[in-house]
């Protein structure tokens, strides 16, 4: 327990102290790495802990991006407020999808397909809404200087990094707390055997719904931060199937249902993809080609994820798994 805590604190200190000394493009990669780690943690609540893999989390990410992006672009509403509009919409959509799929007993392949279908409907609708910029996308108006209220940092780009790092730490704590709570136990019970869980008196419908909404809300917040980092929202990027797959990939590479697995997965998957994009910018598609190989490789060789390997090296026993 003590060794584990020391290792974690050292890693955390490194994540806080080192980045400002890195070159700018490494910082940019780190922002994506940490953002996707956080997205993986959020996905893991539903996909890993509860055993309901969603391939449509881009829907919530896109809602988070568009809700605050649109409010800022048209009414200059601060993203810190717009974020909650996205959260509310995402929670509503997750509750709707969850209600429909759980109420009508949609499982397995069909659950995956339904989540894809909802995200694709949303993409199709957004691409036809002039209010949201349609297929061209939605640019976010720039502020003249750095502004915390407007979530724009043109000179101190590193601020974005600390925001996503804060999200990651917060998200991981939420996941850890949830996992060690009664709700978390119930969710794991549902994953193992839903009928048995119901026999034990667990309200499976409500628990699955809680997991779905929590996962969606966390994903949505990341969408808001992303929109104000990139300052341009493209419907095919923020609502596309590749994003959904990438989020799931991060979690599975690290390890389904592990607390720190998605963090590790984010660092592995995202740094490979981002550096592929930077070093082979003349070869568009190579990043997702590599992601595809990672997907197949992890499924065939180590479906339980890579975090296990670390657990074998370091005597991590309790909270990590």
């Amino acid at each position, binding site marked *: 327990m003590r060794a584990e805590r020391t290792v974690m604190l050292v890693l955390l200190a490194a994540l806080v102290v080192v980045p400002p000394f890195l070159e700018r493009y490494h910082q940019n990669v780190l922002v994506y790495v940490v953002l996707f780690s956080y997205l993986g943690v959020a996905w893991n609540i539903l*996909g890993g802990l509860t055993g309901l*893999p969603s*391939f449509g989390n881009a829907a919530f990410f896109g809602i988070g991006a568009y809700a605050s992006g649109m409010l800022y672009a048209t009414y200059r509403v601060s993203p810190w407020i717009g974020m909650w509009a996205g959260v509310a919409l995402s929670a509503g959509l997750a509750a709707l999808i969850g209600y*429909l799929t759980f109420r*009508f007993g*949609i499982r*397995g*392949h*069909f659950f*995956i*397909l*339904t989540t*894809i*279908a*909802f995200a*694709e*409907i949303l993409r*199709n*609708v957004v*691409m*036809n809404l002039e209010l949201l910029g349609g297929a061209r996308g939605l640019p976010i108006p720039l502020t003249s200087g750095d502004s915390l209220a407007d979530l724009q940092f043109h000179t101190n780009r590193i601020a974005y990094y600390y925001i996503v790092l804060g999200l990651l730490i917060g998200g991981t704590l939420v996941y850890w707390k949830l996992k060690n709570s009664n709700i978390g136990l119930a969710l794991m019970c549902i994953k193992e055997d839903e009928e048995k869980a119901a026999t034990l008196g667990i309200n499976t419908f409500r628990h699955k719904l809680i997991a779905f909404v929590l996962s969606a809300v966390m994903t949505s917040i990341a969408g808001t931060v992303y929109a104000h980092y990139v300052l341009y929202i493209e419907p095919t990027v923020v609502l596309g*199937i*590749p994003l959904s*797959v990438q989020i*799931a*990939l991060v979690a*599975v590479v690290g390890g*389904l249902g592990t607390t720190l697995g998605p963090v590790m997965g984010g660092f592995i998957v995202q740094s490979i993809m981002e550096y592929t994009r930077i070093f082979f910018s003349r*070869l*568009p*598609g*190579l990043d*997702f*080609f590599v*992601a*595809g*190989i*990672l*997907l*197949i*490789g*992890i*499924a*065939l060789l180590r*479906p339980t994820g890579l975090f296990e390997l670390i657990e074998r090296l370091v005597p991590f026993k309790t909270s990590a798994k």
Partner: protein
Amino acid sequence: MTELGPVLQALISGALIGAVYGLVAVGLNLIYGVVHVINFAHGEFLMLSMYIALLMNALMGTNPFFALPVAVPIVMLTGLLVQRYLINRTIDAPILIQSFVTFGLLLVMQNGVMLIFGPNYYSIRVTELEGVLEFGYVRVSVGLLTAAVLSVLTILGLHLFLTRTYVGTAIRAIGQNRFAAQMIGIPVKRLYELSFAISTGLAAVAGLVLTPLIWMHPTIGEIYILKAFIIVVLGGMGNVLGAFVGGIIIGITESVSALFLMPSLKEAVALIIFIIILLFRPRGLFGRAVRI
């Protein structure tokens, strides 16, 4: 009567393109019915055959239809290898892991083709197919008609193979109960490979008949795979003829909704139908989904 013309036109061209959608969906459904795996990469095999046709056209000026004897076997061989080395190894794995294999394959094939051919759009012109037939109000392009007829013939061929031949019966037996089939001596793994090869072969045929009609690009598979999922759910998972009828329904739905709504929303309409069917008729419009 003036209002009826465009509607009739939409019905006919919807049904014709729907037959091609049906062909794609039938292949996807065969794999779901027999191997119980959802092949997310199914559309990529369609795309692969298009690019083989493109390559042959660029090198030798071959008409896409004459590329059939080359492209279909190549795609089928690819499918067989995929089944043998990737799918067979995860046959008992959780659904998520299985989906990862076929999703990974989708990314590898799509982006592999992007790396080789670039993200550009290509088309192959076939002058013989550019004519238009007129039947009263309705105009039908020769290319679309040919594509529909070839799709129907291919589906018919598959149906006869599955119902009238010894091997086809064995494949259906595996679909019904893999363990019982194994017990009476059916070589399950080998027939999985054959089924996968046939399924990808159907996608290859669909790709070739579509080639003269559309602009090809590396992500074109995604468009057809989404439609194929909708159709499969509509017609019933594992039901070959149901998938064909589902294809025609989706083709008509798209062309009619393009007439009344914004054309770009036609895919959203099809997806909404998909969710409704999934919720209220999970075994498809035609009931018993367990048979193929």
